């Protein structure tokens, strides 16, 4: 039984002017201790999905149109607020993209970590502080810096604090929303390596959201590629990297400049993301797809299994035309 199953999840943002379909029928599963990479351009609905899992979507506008999120057998969408609160930070925790603003500027780093331990660990404040200091040391921060404030730390160090905070209660699932995008490359490698060690040590499953295929290659077991609120290709790392099928995935891999050829220009995928408030019918990618036919534009595409451990949402691929 998998740790987390997302079935046909769709999330819409309804405002007076527009009805934004951010996520439309996403199906994902994360196994115990495994890492799922979620890849896609900005605005593909990656972060919305992640926030959906923790039910952090902004109340008045955001609405869960349909679908279920089964976590350890329990549907989180049906859970009461109290149940969700006991899950957040304890069972599932999240790391955000920009470390500079992720920490509360007026509380000490130690307090912010101890807070979540004290809340879920049901232990005394003193013990919580102790464990907080231990967590900091685990992420490579000297113990005596626990009493300092976020503005005294660099970007990389702040991200380490956020990671320490996320893993403090030993969650079974860690959601990392582009954890390293805001960091420079050298720090990026250190942080990812540290996350991998911690994960292996504690058997934590991870949902890694990124648009950097290099990171996915090194850290993820499975990969899901999202486009315009839908998962268009989903499979194990080998399948996707060795045998990408969906035109959009091919475009993604095509746009990575290869080192051996001396290329003058990059090969971006032409055109722009469709407007989520006015999504085209049929395959959302058809107006940018090189192989698009009239049929693609009309009928809805299904995410079908092309081979074991590799699904694609493209009728032409299923028919073997591409």
């Amino acid at each position, binding site marked *: 039984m998998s740790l987390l199953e997302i079935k046909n999840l769709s999330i819409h943002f309804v405002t007076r002017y527009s009805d934004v379909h951010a996520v439309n029928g996403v199906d994902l599963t994360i196994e115990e201790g495994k890492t799922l990479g979620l890849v896609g351009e900005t605005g593909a609905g990656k972060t919305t999905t992640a926030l959906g899992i923790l039910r952090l979507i902004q109340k008045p506008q955001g609405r869960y149109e349909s679908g279920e999120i089964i976590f350890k057998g329990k549907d989180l969408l049906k859970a009461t607020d109290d149940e969700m609160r006991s899950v957040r930070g304890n069972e599932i925790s*999240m790391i955000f993209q920009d470390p500079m603003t992720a920490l509360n500027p007026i509380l000490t780093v130690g307090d912010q970590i101890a807070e979540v331990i004290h809340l879920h660990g049901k232990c005394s404040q003193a013990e919580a502080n102790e464990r907080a200091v231990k967590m900091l040391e685990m992420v490579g921060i000297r113990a005596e810096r626990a009493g300092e404030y976020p503005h005294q730390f660099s970007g990389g160090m702040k991200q380490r604090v956020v990671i320490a905070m996320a893993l403090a209660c030993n969650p079974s699932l860690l959601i990392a929303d582009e954890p390293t995008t805001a960091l420079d490359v050298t720090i990026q490698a250190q942080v990812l390596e540290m996350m991998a060690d911690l994960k292996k040590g504690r058997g934590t499953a991870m949902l890694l959201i990124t648009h950097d295929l290099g990171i996915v290659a090194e850290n993820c077991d499975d990969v899901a590629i999202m486009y315009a609120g839908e998962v268009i290709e989903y499979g194990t790392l080998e399948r996707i990297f060795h045998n990408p099928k969906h035109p959009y995935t091919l475009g993604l891999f095509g746009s990575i400049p290869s080192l051996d050829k001396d290329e003058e220009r990059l090969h971006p995928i032409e055109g722009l993301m469709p407007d989520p408030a006015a999504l085209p019918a049929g395959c959302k990618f058809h107006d940018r797809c090189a192989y698009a036919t009239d049929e693609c534009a009309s009928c809805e595409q299904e995410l079908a299994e092309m081979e074991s451990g590799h699904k694609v949402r493209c009728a032409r691929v299923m028919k073997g035309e591409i």
Partner: protein
Amino acid sequence: MAKYIIKRILWMIPVMLGVLIIVFTISYLTPGDPVITILGSGYTPEKYAAKAAELNLDKGYFGQLGSYIWGIVTRFDFGKSFYSNLSITGEFARRFPITAALGIFGCIIMVVLGLPLGILSAVKQYSVLDYTLTVIALVLAAMPGFVLAILGLVLFGVRLRWLPITGLDTPKSWILPLATNAMPCVAMIMRQTRTNMLEVIRQDYIRTARSKGLSERTILWKHALKNCLIPIITVTGGMVAMVMAGSIITENIFNIKGMGTYMYAAIMQRDYPIVNGCVLLIAFIVCCVNLIVDICYALIDPRIRARYASSGKKHKKKAHKEVT
């Protein structure tokens, strides 16, 4: 940090001196000869000279300024009123506590009412509560103080007879003056809190806190409130000056014998020593409040505390002005 506070206190002395000089110069340039107004009609040249000497009006600008400052600094003596011949300091001793009490209670009400209402209307945005509070804030902010005071007086004092209308002897009689003096400021603080709160709620660290599984209430009180306090403290600092100045109008209408009525009477009689004294004392209170505001910044925001400590070495700079 303590070094910074001491430095600020030292800086208050030249500021107060500056206020004193400005206020004195303004009244020195005022037309109309005090001696004639005191002696009335049948004055004779030698009596005029005697009186002028007594009020040391014959010493020219710097002489008078010097003796005025010397009088205040050494004997804390603000001189004598032109007409009642009573020493002003004696009057201040009697009247200052009343205005100070009104001011302090006014400020407490401002914060105690303004802050929660602001937070409430921010958290429950677009709700009915939000709009009623906004409407009240608009009306109170747009109504001149004395209209509000007289309306309150007529409505609650005379028509409904719930509250006594003058003096401050019974606790009930404090309600009306405080309400009409503090209300406009409550409205402003509420609006300021609401805008700040809306901004803070959208910050990332609030989402992090929520992702940690904290309840909305703890997020509000522990994380959001403290962060949105800083700009509110600046506004409160400004409000205190408004409340003190507003006391002139409120005390007059509610017949409270504080600095306000004293100054109003002095303005009407063109009794300049009293006007100068009152402005000086109120300016002093405002200076103290500004100092307290700065200290509150440091208490709440570690970034500013760090800058204060380091600023002790570098050139003097009040950092919090940039933050707000």
